[in-house]
């Protein structure tokens, strides 16, 4: 009973995600942001430290239930940073800042910050900040789409994999003023590419669908590869839909640039430790690969249907976010701007 009262909001969020009421990352992001806003405006907290510990408990609960969903955790982490920044500007103190050599060398004993002093204007300034953040989240997809004209030129052939709402918007925006072709890889076994291709075709973009096996054959004709992603890892690598690593290797072979459209809330401070890392990948039902009616074959084989793929940072050329383009080697800098180092190990 106690736990349910304490965490009822995050438990509801977890349950909504499990019941597939929230599908894409954008919806999840907006819901998480609203959850924290409610927590700030209605929750029982006095100092910044209280509020931060409430949020940290929710992060821990979420990670223990759904570790693959990085979006809500990233948003909560970013809000922790906003709280810290607000507190620091409120007291006009230096704050801990980054963990850096500089700080090591110049640290003062009196510098220990534990955010426990009461700041009366904290709530209102936080709510203001969060309202701005919400606007930023809502306009993120449009901001990325407006950069389309810089990257897509006339008569180019673009390759994309599966379905991504961000990529769809990006391509549709460019199609308003440029003429180009799109090749969509169908992305078995879920075949989201079919839906993507039909959506693009409705906007009068010349679209071709190819099976996964034809990627290498078609790659030499492609000018650019533009994909979305599920998560961006701390080393600049990606966790995306299954099958994208293959496409990236083919593109590398022909020296074709790969552009990844990633919202800021997809940047996660996690590293890939090993290929069998717990909670990096999840295997869905084998029914997509081999139906249950296959008879005695099922007794003799193991069937794996992994949902995600890891793409190493060497294969990615550019990350496009609402602030512009960045190289994969710059991701560490973006992370240090988004999240406080103490929150990165949660």
């Amino acid at each position, binding site marked *: 009973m106690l736990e349910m009262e304490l965490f009822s909001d995050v438990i509801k969020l*977890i349950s909504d995600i499990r019941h597939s009421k929230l599908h894409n990352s954008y919806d999840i992001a907006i819901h998480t942001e609203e959850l924290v806003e409610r927590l700030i405006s209605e929750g029982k907290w006095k100092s910044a430290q209280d509020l931060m510990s409430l949020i940290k408990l929710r992060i821990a609960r979420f990670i223990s239930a759904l570790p693959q969903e990085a979006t809500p955790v990233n948003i909560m982490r970013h809000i922790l940073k906003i709280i810290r920044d607000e507190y620091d500007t409120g007291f006009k103190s230096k704050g801990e800042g980054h963990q850096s050599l500089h700080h090591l060398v110049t640290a003062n004993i009196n510098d220990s910050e534990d955010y426990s002093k009461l700041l009366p204007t904290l709530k209102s300034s936080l709510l203001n900040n969060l309202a701005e953040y919400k606007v930023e989240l809502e306009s993120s997809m449009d901001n990325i789409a407006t950069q389309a004209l810089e990257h897509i030129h006339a008569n180019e052939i673009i390759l994309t994999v599966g379905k991504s709402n961000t990529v769809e918007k990006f391509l549709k925006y460019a199609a308003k003023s440029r003429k180009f072709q799109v090749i969509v890889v169908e992305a078995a076994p879920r075949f989201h590419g079919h839906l993507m291709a039909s959506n693009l075709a409705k906007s009068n973009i010349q679209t071709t669908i190819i099976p996964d096996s034809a990627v290498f054959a078609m790659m030499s004709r492609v000018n650019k590869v533009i994909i979305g992603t599920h998560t961006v890892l701390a080393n600049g690598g990606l966790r995306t839909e299954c099958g994208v690593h293959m496409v990236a290797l083919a593109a590398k072979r022909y020296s074709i640039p790969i552009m990844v459209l990633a919202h800021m809330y997809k940047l996660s401070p996690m590293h890939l430790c090993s290929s069998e890392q717990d909670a990096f990948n999840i295997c869905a039902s*084998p029914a997509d690969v081999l139906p249950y009616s296959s008879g005695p074959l099922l*007794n003799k084989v193991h069937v794996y249907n992994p949902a995600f793929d890891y793409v190493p940072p060497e294969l990615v050329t550019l990350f496009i976010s609402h602030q512009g383009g960045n190289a994969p080697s710059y991701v560490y800098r973006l992370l240090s701007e988004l999240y406080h180092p103490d929150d990165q190990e949660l």
Partner: protein
Amino acid sequence: MSQKLDKNVTQKEVVQAVVVAEHFGNEFVPITDDTPLSLLPLLNVPLIEYTLEFLSLGGIEETFLFCCSNVDVIKQHINKSIEKSAGWSLTMKVHVIISESCRSFGDCLRDLDAKAFIRSDFVLLEPEIVGNIKLLPIIKKHNEVCKSDKGAAMTLLLQETGLGQRGRCSFEELLMVSTPSNRVLLHQKLGTSKKAKIELPLEILMDNSSVNIYHNLKDTHIAICSPSVLPLFSDNFDFQTKDDFVRGLLMNEEILGSTIYWHLIKGNQYGAAITNWRMYQSVSRDILHRWLYPLVPDMGISSQQRSYIHLQNNIYRSKDVHLTQSNSLVEDVIIGASSSVGDKTKIIRSIIGESVKIGENVIIEDSFIFSSTVVHNNSVIKQSVIGQKCALETGCIVTKASVIGKSVVLPENSLIENSLIQSYPPKSGVTSEKLAKNAYRICHEETADSADEEDGLHRKLSRLYMHEESESSDDESIKSSDSEDNLSYTISPVPDDTNLFLTEVIDSLTRGFEDKLQCDNLILEINSSRYAYNVTVKEVNFNVIKAILTLPFQLYLGQPYLSSLRPLLEYFSPILKNYIRNVSAMVDCLQAIEVCRYFFYFLSCSILGDGLDYWITMGGWSEVHAHIGHLFEPFVLHP
């Protein structure tokens, strides 16, 4: 006007489900002596959690759980789950209904009818269902069917399975005949009858323009029911199980005026009921293979906590398991929290519970070990179930579908095969054998009466797998009748290559003779056919001669054989010269002739002379040729 009102009223109703959580049988003795079947751990999570989580994910908002025995334990468990905010408790309300006097499934439904909780279409589950089906669209479809057919009582949910598959319990083999609109005409469970024939009433075929006959379906024991089902149960006291109900309804269609429909669950949806140990084993295996996604152990069934790490070969390991070697867990294993496994131990296709201590040099295969059990060194456990808090001393061997109940202590070096063991002396009326202070073997007599034979068969079929090999031998015998089943997965029988070759040669020679083609070209054709069908030299010679000898029947009709054969032999003599060049070829030729068994004279025995000698010396005469042997005498060149 009233119809619209009705629609508005039904739309405000919550979606309800009824789970009869009571199992009226004794398949799971002695495990079920202590725990109710609903709380039997399936992959270390009580069964009822799977059922409730399935209903909640499927979209149900209110569930009635019917219990007849061990009610307190079940109620306590449900309350604890609600406190821990289990996944299903957030979207679904669970009411536990107690009825101590019910003795069967039918009784429970009659009781429910009396209590009048159900207001509209509801989902009816027999005990111990696991699944991941999205129920709301199916309920909607049932609603539409009900609107068009006022008497529609129930929609059965069935899943396609192939023959020979584990998940298909032979006890539950189902034959169904239905119309194209999915109305059930015949529903028969074949498992218990030993007859090899099935009788289809003629009316089924006469009354309908087209019927579909299905043998590849598995009953998921889930059904969508109209509110009329409960009164039907109340009216007919001989409906004890759901199968009785279905059978009764189909037999008395005109009288009762109700019909039954069925629905195929498609895609990655899965549903199964655990009715006996075999289904328990196959459902465990299916969940380990992730057929039940998103209800998989590593995502936590209802606890929404990750308790296991999913590794290659479908190994699920809890985070604090202590292993001393990396290859102890081979494949399809789940091992619960705080367990430890010793050196040189191998665990294959088994379920290990929490806090289980396994010693060194132990082999565990195809088995289930529940929580807090200790298995000492050098033991072997195969195809068995070990209950909670047991202790198996060193050197125990437990095999062949044995079931060991709670708190049993097996002494050292005991050999248990095909037995049920419990820790306390059984009630009077059941014979038992005492093995040790805490181990009593329950004996069940194998009588020869036909009445018990069905029981015995039932028991045999419901046991855990004995050997995988014996199952595959079953496969072999069923395979011949199975070809129409696996529609898209049958390969048509590969035709005999040599027969094809023979027909091709005959075709070539026929054409050659009719069109007067050159023999060289014909030789070329025959050679290419030979490589195409990968035919050996012996067979080439054999078949060419056979072809030539059967040609007269292709070409001429009415003419005596010899006169038609002569010009053929003359025409094809280059071919003969090409193929019959040495002694072994001559032997082939003679074998072909023997096969053809025609009486004729060899005209050019210069070709055949040596071969004939060889043949005679080899003693290759058959009886028939014993007769004609003398005819060849003049042709045999005596040395």
